[in-house]
């Protein structure tokens, strides 16, 4: 093609007079722009890339919580009292559940143990994306539901507490709620130790939610600690069984038993009736839930007489053989008349305990000042909150000594005018069992001998033990507390129950507190029967037999050799070669 083209470089139009600096400026501006971009790129990629990396990671990395196993509760011999077992919870997305398979839905309803209409009602609200169907079912049921293969029904792994011992230890062990937090008993008292701490790990999940890679460090979960109680499950079961039989036989409302080791202060058994099954807590009443040994208070009655005598002995005001005139069997003070069941005439101090004379105890107490009495009661734990790692232990009531009127000082001598729980009564008697020192009680296993606070001298404690043995022997009120082979001692008590401001005429409470063997006591046992209404109501008739059987079995289980000569009742002879 032949065209007349002006060479570019020599076109007169382009031979302009634009100054050179203008083109240089444009170049410079462009260069600056590119430098800024490069610097920004360096800044993002090299210098300050954390923020962007983190943002990117957030898009695909997840933090998984690693749940911690809840610790077990075991008894002093290592037997399981409470342990967690897997119990899946069934949930559903109502929208995804197929409606056209009524057979499968009916099977599901049967497995979940709920009527079909209520299952359908749960599934009918299609707006919800998460509906609990049933929480914490058995693992076998969960497997069967999984085998059904229904769409829209899912399971979440949860744990539930199992209690092999059931009713016998229900009050001590307690229970947890659906979120696995302790609500009562040891489960509550040691919830922090039992729960442990959940761990975490960062992982990368793929689109389907499967874990693909672990990222960074994982914080391992801290499993809950196992709690070992001082309770001996065999003694506990036996005490509960005998208590239950006694309450049923005497048509009583309730009862409690407390067994404390006299050397170490450990609580070997604490049983109450009525009780409940911790695994199935539907339809519980408040009556069943109360740990009566710790929460129910009553006036200790005759249980205080040995304490009154002990403090008089300690202060040197009487000796065990001092004669106390209790005739004519009644005493007037402050407008009230205090009576004995019989006119016992002149009794020794030992006889006051043996015959359980109110007038005798009163006269002994009048040799003491209210301040001294209050000091001894307080030193033995009355009116004080029990130092026990257990929730719900009540303080009882002991009014300050300055507010005592003379008649009140008199009635406190034989146990009226103050109130205490069965545990406090049993605990105060450990002072007599432990050579005059009150030892701290514990619910956690601690096998070393306890070091107590001296309240009485060892000599006076031994004198009181002798009086307790007399009270449980011939001539005393607690003869039915005797066992075969073991020497026992103890004090029975009977009282009208308080109704409103006065006392009910035919509602009684019967109890017995004692220890065995009497020379070197190993255990202190206290039994209380509430409202026996089958004719017999004295402590020596109703509570003492439970004491006797509990002591017999407990000492046999502990391997204590019988210290009394045993008359054989059944004799057999066998030729054996060893």
């Amino acid at each position, binding site marked *: 093609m032949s065209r007349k083209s002006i060479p570019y470089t020599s076109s007169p139009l382009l031979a302009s007079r634009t100054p050179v600096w203008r083109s240089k400026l444009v170049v410079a501006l462009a260069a600056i722009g590119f430098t800024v971009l490069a610097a920004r790129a360096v800044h993002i990629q090299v210098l300050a890339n954390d923020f962007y990396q983190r943002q990117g990671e957030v898009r695909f990395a997840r933090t998984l919580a690693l749940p911690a*196993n809840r610790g077990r509760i075991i008894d002093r011999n290592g*037997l*399981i009292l409470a*342990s*967690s*077992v*897997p119990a899946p919870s069934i949930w559903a997305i109502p929208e995804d559940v197929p409606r056209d398979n009524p057979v499968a839905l009916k099977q599901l309803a049967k497995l979940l143990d709920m009527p079909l209409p209520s299952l359908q009602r749960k599934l009918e609200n299609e707006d919800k994306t998460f509906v609990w169907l049933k929480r914490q079912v058995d*693992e076998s049921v969960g497997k069967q539901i999984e085998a059904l293969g229904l769409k829209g029904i899912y399971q979440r792994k949860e744990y539930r507490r*199992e209690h*092999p*011992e*059931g009713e*016998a230890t229900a009050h001590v062990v307690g229970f947890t709620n659906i979120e696995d937090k302790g609500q009562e008993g040891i489960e509550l008292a040691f919830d922090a130790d039992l729960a442990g701490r959940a761990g975490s790990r960062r992982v990368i999940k793929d689109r389907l939610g*499967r*874990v*693909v*890679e*672990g990222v960074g460090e994982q914080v391992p979960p801290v499993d809950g600690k196992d709690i070992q109680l001082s309770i001996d*499950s*065999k003694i506990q*079961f*036996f005490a509960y*069984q005998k208590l239950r039989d006694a309450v049923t036989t005497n048509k009583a409302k309730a009862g409690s038993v407390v067994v404390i080791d006299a050397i170490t202060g450990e609580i070997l058994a604490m049983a109450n009736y009525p009780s409940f099954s911790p695994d199935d807590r539907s339809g519980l009443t408040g009556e069943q839930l109360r740990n009566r040994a710790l929460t129910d208070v009553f006036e200790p009655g005759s249980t205080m007489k040995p304490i009154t005598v002990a403090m008089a002995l300690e202060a040197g005001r009487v000796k065990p053989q001092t004669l106390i005139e209790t005739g004519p069997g009644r005493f007037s003070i402050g407008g009230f008349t205090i009576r004995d069941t019989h006119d016992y005439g002149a009794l020794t101090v030992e006889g006051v305990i043996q015959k359980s004379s109110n007038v005798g105890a009163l006269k002994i107490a009048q040799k003491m000042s209210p301040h001294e009495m209050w000091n001894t009661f307080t030193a033995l734990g009355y009116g004080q909150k029990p130092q026990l790692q257990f929730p719900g232990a009540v303080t009882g009531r002991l009014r300050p000594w300055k507010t005592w009127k003379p008649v009140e000082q008199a009635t406190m001598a034989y146990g009226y005018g103050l109130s205490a729980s069965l545990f406090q009564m049993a605990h105060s008697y450990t002072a007599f069992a432990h050579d005059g020192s009150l030892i701290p009680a514990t619910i956690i296993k601690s096998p070393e001998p306890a070091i107590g606070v001296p309240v009485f001298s060892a000599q006076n404690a031994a004198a009181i033990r002798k009086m307790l043995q007399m009270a449980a022997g011939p001539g005393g009120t607690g003869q039915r507390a005797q066992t*075969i*082979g073991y020497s026992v001692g103890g004090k029975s008590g009977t009282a009208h129950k308080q109704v409103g401001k006065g006392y009910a005429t035919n509602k009684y409470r019967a109890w017995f507190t004692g220890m065995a063997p009497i020379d070197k006591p190993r255990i202190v046992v206290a039994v209380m029967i509430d409202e026996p209404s089958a004719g017999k109501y004295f402590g020596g008739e109703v509570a003492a037999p439970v004491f006797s059987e509990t002591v*017999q079995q407990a000492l046999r289980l502990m391997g204590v*050799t*019988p210290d009394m*000569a*045993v*008359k*054989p*009742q*059944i*004799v*057999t*002879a*066998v*030729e*054996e*070669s*060893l």
Partner: protein
Amino acid sequence: MTRLNLVLLLAVMASALYLVNVQYESRRLFTAMERANSEGRRLDTERDRLQVERRAQATPQRVEKLAREKLQMRPATPAITHYVAYSDASASPATSAADGTARAASGRLP
């Protein structure tokens, strides 16, 4: 010069393939480890559950019921005395206190 480029290109490709292989191996091993871990946890909970079940089989309630009903046992008290005669000539002097006193009282055995 092109030979060097070719060699480098082949090296890069080999390295890339090796990287892919290593990544795949690591993912595979990771999933195997995860599976083993969860199997271990499952076995742990299974063992705990079985321990609880074993304990439930041996609770005092159940033991007493079976002892009374199936085995016809009755509780022992110290009042039941059971004499055992040694037919061995070198009888050891160590015997239980109950047997000793009872034997002495009845004069039955040397």
